[in-house]
């Protein structure tokens, strides 16, 4: 249990471009324990999405090492559920079947997991929408379906790449609450990529603050707030954490000083 589930050691990534090599991120050292919720917050282009994709085995890293569950990441990870920035619905499948896609592809027992899928849809306020087609749903509902799809097969690890990036502020708040509740029930090892400071503080046990190019970890902050955290009852310390992260960004020139 003491061994971290996800371990990044001196991880870096370089791209070769026409104008020479570009460093997306470097010297990334991060341990994520089993059942821990970690958020990475940083400005655009700091390489935070790259880190998630490297952990998922979807992009190669060029230095250091990444292990998941003690094994070095060398190919796409499959004991994982990923929520992308876009919901990526298959328009030819209805809502339930989009969730069940995960089960179909993995050739798992449909009869057993259909109940799981229905429960997840219910937990995210989508019961009654099982037979709807994705294009009949709002953006927020589609993203909820993709969260259900990421959880239905019971993966150990949940990766989220700016899942609220394309949503309006109210929907963001609702889905944040959904994610917190689902995470508290399932205790997945979660890595959440975001550019929103309050979102990171609201959801995470630890917030990794990244600086601009080349992406480096500036600070890792423990968020010691009781759960469930409620948006309408945010304690004073929530604002202190947010302000602290904002100050880090200011000192790095990411946010302008007033």
């Amino acid at each position: 249990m003491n061994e971290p589930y996800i371990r990044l050691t001196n991880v870096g990534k370089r791209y070769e471009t026409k104008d020479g090599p570009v460093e997306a991120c470097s010297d990334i050292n991060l341990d994520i324990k089993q059942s821990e919720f970690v958020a990475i917050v940083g400005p655009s282009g700091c390489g935070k999405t790259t880190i998630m994709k490297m952990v998922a085995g979807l992009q190669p890293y060029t230095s250091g090492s990444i292990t998941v569950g003690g094994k070095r990441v060398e190919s796409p990870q499959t004991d994982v559920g990923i929520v992308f920035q876009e919901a990526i619905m298959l328009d030819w499948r209805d809502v339930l079947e989009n969730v069940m896609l995960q089960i179909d592809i993995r050739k798992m027992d449909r009869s057993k997991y259909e109940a799981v899928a229905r429960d997840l849809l219910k937990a995210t306020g989508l019961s009654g929408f099982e037979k709807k087609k994705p294009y009949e749903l709002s953006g927020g509902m589609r993203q909820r379906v993709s969260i259900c799809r990421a959880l239905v097969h019971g993966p150990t690890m949940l990766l989220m790449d700016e899942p609220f990036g394309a949503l309006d502020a109210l929907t963001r708040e609702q889905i944040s609450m959904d994610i917190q509740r689902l995470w508290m029930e399932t205790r997945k090892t979660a890595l959440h990529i975001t550019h929103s400071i309050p979102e990171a503080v609201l959801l995470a046990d630890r917030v990794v603050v990244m600086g601009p190019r080349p992406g480096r970890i500036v600070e890792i902050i423990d968020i010691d707030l009781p759960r469930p955290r409620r948006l309408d009852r945010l304690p004073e310390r929530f604002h202190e954490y947010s302000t602290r992260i904002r100050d880090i960004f200011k000192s790095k020139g990411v946010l302008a000083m007033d």
Partner: protein
Amino acid sequence: MGVLRKLTPVVGTLCFLLAWQLIVVVFKMPPYLLPGPVAVAYAFVDNLDILLSNGWVTVYEMVAGYALAVGVAIPLAIAITSSQRFNEFVMPTMLFFQIVPKVAIAPLFLVWFGVGATPKILVAFLISFFPIVIDAAVGLRSMSTEMADLAKSMGSSRWQVFAQFRLPTSLPYLFSGLKVAATLAIAGTVVGEFVGADKGLGYLLLVTNSNMETALMFATIVALTIIGLVSYYLVELLEGALIPWHVTHRIRESGTM
């Protein structure tokens, strides 16, 4: 109001026909130059047996050529999108066959295959083949990287990626190619018949042209147009049945936007 609004296209068409008839009557056009729509309609009805027997031949050649094009183009599109090497290998040849004027090859087909259906089928095939390959290939390449990542994270096999993600994503593109090809196939068939035939609507066009039977010639053109329209709408019907989720159909369904 609603009914009148719906009749607008019909009224528009009637106005066009009326203007045509008026021009013919007022300027006393000789029927061998420009027959009026009434004369064309009479010619159509009076010669329905000739139009049907020749039309059947043309439809057969067109459908055979089109089916051949679909049958070759889709596997080829899958092959060129699966292997970059194969794409580079066949692309120059394919481009050559697309760019070479079909009218110029048609006489060659006549020499090789005689006046039967085969040369017409081949011209129809050649002309409708390319848009299907190109649009199918664009469709098969249109899957987003995020969808590919999603598929990988589920541990999809190559076949699953193709069957569950790539192929369904490509269908809207494929159908736009199939629709263009459907309208081209009829043109290809007529070109084939122009070069050498003893039956078919293209043949009938040549005969009526040389006999100055202009009204029947117009009736033949109308018959060709009907065939083209019907084949286009048949493909569209199939599209609606196979990909009801596609955007062009869902807008019509909901009746908004």
